[in-house]
Each structure stands twice: as C-alpha cells, then as structure tokens.
C-alpha cells in the first residue's frame, strides 16, 4: 500500500447519531467524484478488505437507487442499498443507506468533496435515524454530544497512567 501523504482518515462524532469521516486525496475533484459514483470504479474500491463485489448498480439521479453486494470470506453476502436524495456533481451526493445486516437502522449518507490546489477533501457523513437510537439519546436532558477526538479521549481514560505515544 502506498503511503498517503495526507495521513489516515479522521473520525468525528458531531452528535450521538452521526459519524463523520474526512480524508484528503491527491486528485482533482471530478475524478474523485467519479470514483465514488461510477459502478466501474466503485466495484474496485468499495470493499474495505478487498472482498469480491458481486453486484454494483448505481442509478445516479435524484430518486434513483443503488445496490452494492459484496461477499465476505465466509461466503456471506453483504448488501447495501439506498436512494439518491440530492446530487450535485462534482461536489455532493446525499442518499439513504440501508445495510441488510442491520435492517432497523436506516441512515442518511452524504458525501461532500472540496478541492484546494489539486487536493480533494472528502467529508463522508452517516447520520442514523433509527428511532430506538434517537429515543435513547433524548432520555437524558442537556445532551451536548461532541466527540471530537473521541479516540484520544477514550485512550486517555483507558490508560490514565500510561504515557501517550506519538
């Protein structure tokens, strides 16, 4: 794997039901948009650990749907599907997101791209809207969820006496 000069993805939790991932790529925005929205590209990059993608259909228009299936090492099919809500090439798409492994949790996924001096920044947001999660969240008053650097925070709590490396 070629090292990325922009480092690894940054994960933030702006609210209890949202997960935001950002990462930069050395490529023009139009190309990055294509890689995330055209089946011939998505097929090659979708699976995180290189699993086989067996279905990849993308109807890139508002109201159009996508369906991606990959097969894991133990032969199980993982199916992801949804409908496009907003499309603004080459900067933004918003779509519903359903994973068959967790059918109760429909989410809204958005992808935003921003190019500066040939570097394109991806902001990927997954906002769960499952009622169970929301009800759970609102049972405590005064929720001020902000999980910036949550990983560092967890690390510091788990190893209170430990020295922090890096």
């Amino acid at each position, binding site marked *: 794997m070629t090292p990325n000069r922009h480092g690894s993805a940054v994960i933030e939790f702006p609210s209890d039901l949202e997960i935001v991932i950002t990462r930069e790529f050395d490529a023009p925005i139009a190309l990055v948009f294509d890689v995330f929205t055209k089946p011939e590209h998505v097929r090659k990059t979708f699976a995180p650990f290189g699993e086989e993608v067996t279905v990849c259909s993308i109807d890139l228009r508002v109201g159009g749907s996508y369906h991606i299936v990959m097969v894991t090492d133990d032969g199980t099919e993982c199916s992801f599907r949804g409908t496009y809500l907003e499309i603004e090439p080459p900067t933004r798409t918003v779509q519903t997101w359903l994973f068959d492994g*967790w059918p109760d949790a429909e989410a809204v996924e958005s992808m935003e791209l921003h190019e500066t001096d040939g570097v394109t920044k991806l902001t990927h947001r997954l906002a769960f809207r499952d009622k169970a999660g929301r009800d759970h969240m609102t049972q*405590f008053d005064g929720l001020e969820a902000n999980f910036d650097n949550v*990983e560092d925070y967890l690390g510091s709590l788990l190893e209170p006496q430990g020295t922090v490396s890096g």
Partner: protein
Amino acid sequence: MPISEYVGIVARSSTTSDVFNAIAEAHRREILDALMAGEKAVGAIVDDLSMSQPQVSKHLRVLSEVGLVSCRAEGRRRLYRLEPARLQPLHEWLAKYKQAWNDRLDRVDDYLKELQQKESSSDT
C-alpha cells in the same frame, strides 16, 4: 472477515451505545476526568468541577447505570471510582470502524493514483 464483524463495525451494538450515550454529555466526561486521579466522594467532585451537588449526583447515577463508575460506602461517605474497562468495547468498535474505513480509502487512494498515471501516460 465474517459477517458478524461487519455488523459490529457498521453499527455499534446496543451494549456499547449505553456507554456511548453516557460519555456523550460534556459534564459526564468532566466527572470521568475528575475520577481519573482516583476514588472521590461526591463532595470532592462538586469542589473540583463547577457543578451543583444534585447535578453531579444525577450524572453519577447515569454513569453508574452503564457501569462506568462504581460506588462503595466508607462510613457515611459514598466513594466513586472510574471503571475504564467498560469503555473497552467502544474503543475496540472505534478502532475496527476506523480500520475498515482507512482500508477502503487507502484502496481509493491507490486507485486514484493508478487512474492518474494511466491518464498521464496516454497523454504522452
């Protein structure tokens, strides 16, 4: 990777979402921070943080319910201590989630480089 792990990565399990909720509140994180130095009575936590005693007690109750703090009586005082092991599942979930995303985005990064190289070599 087996399907069970995907489910675990894609969505945090209900057992960790309680802990997730408990630490989603800034005051509760302050209380956990205050307990990092060691066991404390409610009064000492009130002194450390600019919170009222009922407020601290309310947050300690939430933290106790998810097991992030435990409590023991010493005479008439109740002493609270941090139970960081309860955060381990959340920490593990986050690490796996991050790993899965990074691996996918690394592939995108490599693939973008490949596409650009092809493009520039076909131009010349």
